[in-house]
């Protein structure tokens, strides 16, 4: 194994043994092979750059590199299009460590020397982020390479395998050409993605968000503070932002739209799907810190004649996220709130049972204008998971869920 910082400045000779220059960078061509060094950037004695392709590299050691051709056989123009460059794009840059769900800075890159079909290839193994690599960077050029290797072998080293590294490339077109994807990142829990997003700079955040699918992006964005949500949404194109807001829970969406400048939120609403926009608009009408502003309009309400069977059907057709449902509400054709049945009770009842039988006599509810403090108190007093919100005619308007109340309580502290 060899470290990039040992290859950096490596004297390079051609097949006749005459000096070519020093290695300054390594280029990887992701369209061919994302693990293999395709080009060696060699800087000659007069600062001129030459590009040694991988087939032309005869051998590499810690002391020197040697090509299999003469100087004349090496092109002085770049032989490939967009290259991922180890020093320029990876070394000292921030990358996402998907395995540990955090953002780290690269101290060094571990490579492997591999003899292949008559020449030597370098393969990228991992990025090095540990203390050992930091010390090696400090010693670089001050001691002999084997001395610094020996010193660093006593220090804990930390590496991330190249496959688990997510490079961050803010330039969208370049990202496409380099085939950088955030596939693994997208599989993390949205809360972890949110943590990662918060560490990144604005451009980097944008690049990550733009590459995630709408749903994942919406879930991740929902996990960061509303103020920062607004900043992020403003930095991405309106259409994409509208799609993301569309995927957010209506109450979350309303919160972030409130935070945005009026003209931006109007643009977003105009770009959203009509149904989603309508719900959000209704929520936007409520005063801050009231039950109306807290509630979501994604809830499951059935006619009072419904049975346990029909709940399963209704849940299959439910458009919002099923996980947020804790109770099924009973309404009449005027949408008057008549009862509430906890999901667990439905689960235990025979299929034909009518929901009205399972419903408690008195259902707790608050009015849309009820102060948020009262809502918190209700949740605490009755150990609620959700609480229906009604207007002055007892018509069901929405539901406040425990996670929103928890956010509110935590932020008030």
């Amino acid at each position, binding site marked *: 194994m060899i470290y990039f910082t040992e290859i950096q400045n490596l004297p390079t000779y051609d097949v006749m043994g005459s000096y070519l220059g020093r290695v300054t960078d390594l280029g990887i061509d992701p369209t061919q092979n994302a693990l293999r060094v395709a080009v060696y950037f060699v800087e000659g004695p007069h600062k001129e750059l030459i590009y040694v392709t991988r087939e032309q590299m005869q051998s590499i050691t810690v002391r020197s590199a040697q090509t299999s051709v003469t100087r004349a056989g090496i092109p002085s123009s770049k032989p490939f299009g967009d290259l991922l460059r180890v020093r320029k794009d990876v070394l000292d840059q921030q990358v996402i460590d998907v395995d540990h769900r955090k953002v780290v800075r690269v*101290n060094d890159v571990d490579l492997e020397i591999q003899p292949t079909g008559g020449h030597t290839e370098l393969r990228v193994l991992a990025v090095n982020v540990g203390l050992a690599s930091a010390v090696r960077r400090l010693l670089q050029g001050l001691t002999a390479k084997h001395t610094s290797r020996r010193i660093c072998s006593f220090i804990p080293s930390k590496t991330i395998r190249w496959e688990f590294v997510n490079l961050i490339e803010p330039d969208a077109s370049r990202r496409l050409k380099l085939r950088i994807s955030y596939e693994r990142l997208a599989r993390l829990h949205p809360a972890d993605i949110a943590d990662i997003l918060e560490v990144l700079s604005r451009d980097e955040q944008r690049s990550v968000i733009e590459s995630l699918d709408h749903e994942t992006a919406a879930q991740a964005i929902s996990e960061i503070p509303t103020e920062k949500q607004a900043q992020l949404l403003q930095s991405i194109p309106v259409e994409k932002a509208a799609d993301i807001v569309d995927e957010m829970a209506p109450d979350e969406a309303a919160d972030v739209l409130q935070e945005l400048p009026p003209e931006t939120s109007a643009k977003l609403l105009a770009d959203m799907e009509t149904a989603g926009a309508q719900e959000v608009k209704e929520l936007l009408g409520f005063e801050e810190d009231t039950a109306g502003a807290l509630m979501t309009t994604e809830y499951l309400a059935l006619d009072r004649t419904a049975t346990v069977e029909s709940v399963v059907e209704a849940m299959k057709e439910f458009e919002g996220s099923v996980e947020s449902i804790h109770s099924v509400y009973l309404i009449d054709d005027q949408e008057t709130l008549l009862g509430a049945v906890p999901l667990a009770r439905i689960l235990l009842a025979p299929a034909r049972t009518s929901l009205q039988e399972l419903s408690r006599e008195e259902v707790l509810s608050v009015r849309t204008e009820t102060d948020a403090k009262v809502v918190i108190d209700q949740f605490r007093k009755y150990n609620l998971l959700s609480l229906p919100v009604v207007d002055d005619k007892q018509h069901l308007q929405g539901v406040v869920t425990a996670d929103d109340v928890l956010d509110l309580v935590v932020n008030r502290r």
Partner: protein
Amino acid sequence: MDRNRLKTYRTRLLIFLAVVGPGIITANVDNDAGGIYTYSVAGARFGYSLLWTLIPITIALIVVQEMVARMGVVTGKGLADLIREEYGFRATFLLMICLLVADLGNTISNFAGLASGLSVFGLSRYIIVPLGAVIVWALVVKGTYEFVEKVFLVACVFYIAYPISSFLAHPSWSGAMFNTVKPSFQLDRSYLFMIIGLIGTTITPWMQFYLQSAVVEKGVKIKDWVYSRWDVIVGCIVTDVVAFFIIVACAATLYTSGHRDIRDAADAALALRPLAGHAASALFAFGLANASLFSACILPLATAYYVCEGLGLESGIDKRVDEAPTFYWLYTGLIVLGALAVVALREQMQVPIILLSQVLNGIMLPFVLIFMLRLSNREDLMGAHRNTRAFNAIAWVTCVVMIILTVLLIAAQFFQGMPA
């Protein structure tokens, strides 16, 4: 004015207030114990005659601070981050070590300033310094960014103590104004060193790192940049207005009465008493204690920020202790060591550390300024917001002058030309 216009003005004011903070806070921390001492000596020894230097100093300060704040807004990254990405690990590491040592020295001098400021009121340093350290520590570790920033902004208000005490000293306002706009020069060694000292205390390496990080943490958007710029400009002006009043207060009393040798800033406060009255003296000392405590808060915080940034570790007071351990340990360590040094070491033993910190500041400043200038000219980083040619000209001149003067200042300290 019609209602719509009024509404836009109100919106603008609200945005300004949302963006304000980093610039004003950074600029005020600049008036720390060392700064106040320098201004006091300038007034006591040379009267009003050095006031004119404040105008070029303010311009230099604005130019440099504007540049880093702009970099923070445009790139969304801290200065240490950018230096690391462009100039590699070793340069960053060495810079961070120097800053760490320099800031430890600055922290010591601020705790010393706190102790001597309150000693005017007869309070013992053995109580004040540990208490101050605990307050400073708890404020940041237990507070959120918004809360801490509010406390800092309130601390900025207390700099009003200096204008008031200078009014109580009944200076000759016409003399002060005249000397502010009219440059004067004395070919006297100590006069020249005093000028260098005034400039040297104004632009320091750590401020650039702090300001950029604070702007980033605040999340200022590019389209609100114009407000952020005003935050920076107002901050720089306020700093030097405070400096103006300190110099005036000392000039009106100490210089006029011939009491021209003071040992520290608290000495200046004590000496004001028979000349300007108890109230002026008490306000002066209170101002010193406030400024010292304020800077003792921010310096360790700033240091923890940029060291973690540069080395790629998590930082930020919005993080929990277990999320950003190095950040909190650095912060705690600097405060504890700083306070311990003032409580445990005799004054003669503190002086070399403070001196070393000044020298390190001086050595680093050219690097930091040049890094800054080169970074803010990079098109791939700054895009349309990179320096204009005219701005570059002013900035380079500022940098070169700063660098020359700082080198002279360091030399002066070694040759004991002036106490700095």
